[in-house]
């Protein structure tokens, strides 16, 4: 018998009957999904399959229309408030003209912990954050090899540096669950290797790393666990079989067909 405590230890994420609508169309429909704790999980699927939507539902920025999400055996919101869910967005979705330094951006990953300290300290300006927070920021930046650029304005960073700084913000949070949206898109070889090394290191520290990715080869090679998504979960399990050529082709074809169908319905409506 699987006790609740054991389940908590083994599972990072439990999703049941989850439906999420975005712009009034259902992107995820009745999804059930369990993600193992302490592993590197790759989430793969065609464009518009709902990968980012699933991630943003876990983060809490999209509200499900139905279903439940539990993280580490607790309601997702409880884990968010406890600072246990770190998130790294696609870097194109961030306003890089925002007037922040590298250090300030990464320190914002600590805001949840600063708030949890309670008392009057939670109201202090970020520049007055205690040494422990500053140390966490420096360690996170050192891990992604960006600790020489603490004072640099974020608008002057290159694409790969932007990715690494966003990753450092997630690392600085020291959460049990890391949710990363396309951490490897648009970075050079060196940054890619560095990011993957950091993620493996996080896993070896017992954290769960969930990354959305387009890169099937890297998912097969680096992930411990794979999820293939196309508006619902098509398959889960070990990467080699879940992401086999046959499964990928079948999913891609299904996605292409459904897009074609939607397009022809759309055309029919246009003509009517």
């Amino acid at each position, binding site marked *: 018998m699987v006790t609740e405590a054991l389940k908590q230890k083994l599972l990072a994420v439990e999703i049941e009957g989850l439906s999420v609508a975005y712009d009034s169309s259902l992107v995820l429909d009745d999804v059930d999904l369990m993600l193992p704790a302490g592993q590197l999980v790759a989430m793969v699927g065609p464009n518009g399959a709902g990968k980012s939507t699933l991630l943003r539902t876990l983060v*809490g920025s999209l509200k499900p229309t139905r279903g439940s999400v539990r993280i580490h055996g607790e309601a997702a919101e409880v884990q968010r408030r406890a600072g246990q869910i770190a998130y790294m967005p696609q870097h194109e979705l961030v306003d890089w003209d925002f*007037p*922040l330094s590298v250090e300030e951006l990464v320190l914002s990953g600590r805001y949840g912990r600063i708030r949890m300290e309670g008392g009057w300290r939670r109201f202090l300006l970020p520049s007055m954050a205690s040494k422990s927070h500053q140390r966490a920021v420096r360690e996170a930046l050192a891990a992604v090899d960006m600790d020489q650029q603490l004072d640099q304005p974020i608008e002057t960073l290159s694409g790969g540096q932007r990715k690494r700084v966003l990753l450092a913000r997630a690392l600085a949070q020291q959460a049990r669950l890391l949710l990363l949206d396309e951490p490897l898109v648009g970075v050079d070889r060196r940054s890619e290797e560095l990011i993957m090394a950091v993620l493996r290191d996080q896993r070896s520290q017992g954290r769960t790393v969930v990354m959305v990715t387009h890169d099937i080869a890297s998912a097969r090679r680096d992930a411990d666990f794979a999820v293939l998504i196309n508006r619902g979960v098509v398959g889960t399990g070990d990467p080699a079989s879940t992401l086999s050529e046959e499964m990928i082709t079948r999913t891609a074809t299904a996605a292409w067909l459904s897009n074609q169908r939607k397009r022809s319905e759309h055309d029919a409506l246009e003509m009517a």
Partner: protein
Amino acid sequence: MSATLPGFGVAIIDALIAVLMLFINLLPDAIAEPFQYRFMQRALLTSMLVGAVCGLLSSYVILKRWSLLGDAISHAVLPGVAIAYLLGLPFFVGAFATGALTSLGIGVIERNSRIKSDAAMGLMFTAAFALGVVIISQITTATHLMHILFGNVLGVRDSALLLTLFATVLALIVVLLFYKELMIYVFDPVQARSLGLNTGFIHYGLILLLTLTIVASLETVGIILVVAMLITPGATAYLLVNRLHHMIWLSTLIGVVSAVLGLYLAFHFNVASGGTMVLVVSAFFLLAFLFAPQRGVVMRWRRRVSA
């Protein structure tokens, strides 16, 4: 209205004016001269407060891309003012009510239809403004409604001055105590959610604070021009600095200096005070646009030529 105010409100105004005069009296007589009049002292205090609160929030307006929202709220205030006038209520009660209702209405339209936010704002605020215009056309003897449209800092009443003071203090406290929450919400609302912050509360809290600021500034700069004080100081500072806290303090400073300088010039040349303040702040923006050390058009051109 002023008769119903508690005495300590007037006492606070007198105390602040006394402090201001300590500094004014250090200036050469030629500059300090207009401020020997009681109405100019009150106007100076009001202008500084309006400049400060608008400048303070304008950094957030710029970074959150809420310029049109500010415009929308300021126009939506008009029917509230008119209705409050008909009912004999203080104008800011009605103004705050319709301003807040309109910003809620914009959100409702956005979430429940395919209409995007710019159109939702445009249609809500013009509808509200139209309602205001229609009601006002029924009111024949309403000279102070003109003040609300175009502002008149020289005739600001105690009630409006105290409201401005309240808005300024509240905005200052909120920005100081919740700097981190506001920063993370404006920069990356998804990250704010992942930390368990109540982004809906922050969103509407910020909008209500903006509405309060607009209402408090009405008698000083007027409905049509208040939005300039909420956009231009922040936009100017944005061109000059690279850190959020520098931007916030600089935009506050620009707001205060523009308001005071505008008041002084308006008195000197006997022209409309609200319009003069906006012209001054716009001049600051133009200077920054051309000559900002890193981002100024002229400076970049010079770098290109010398490179």
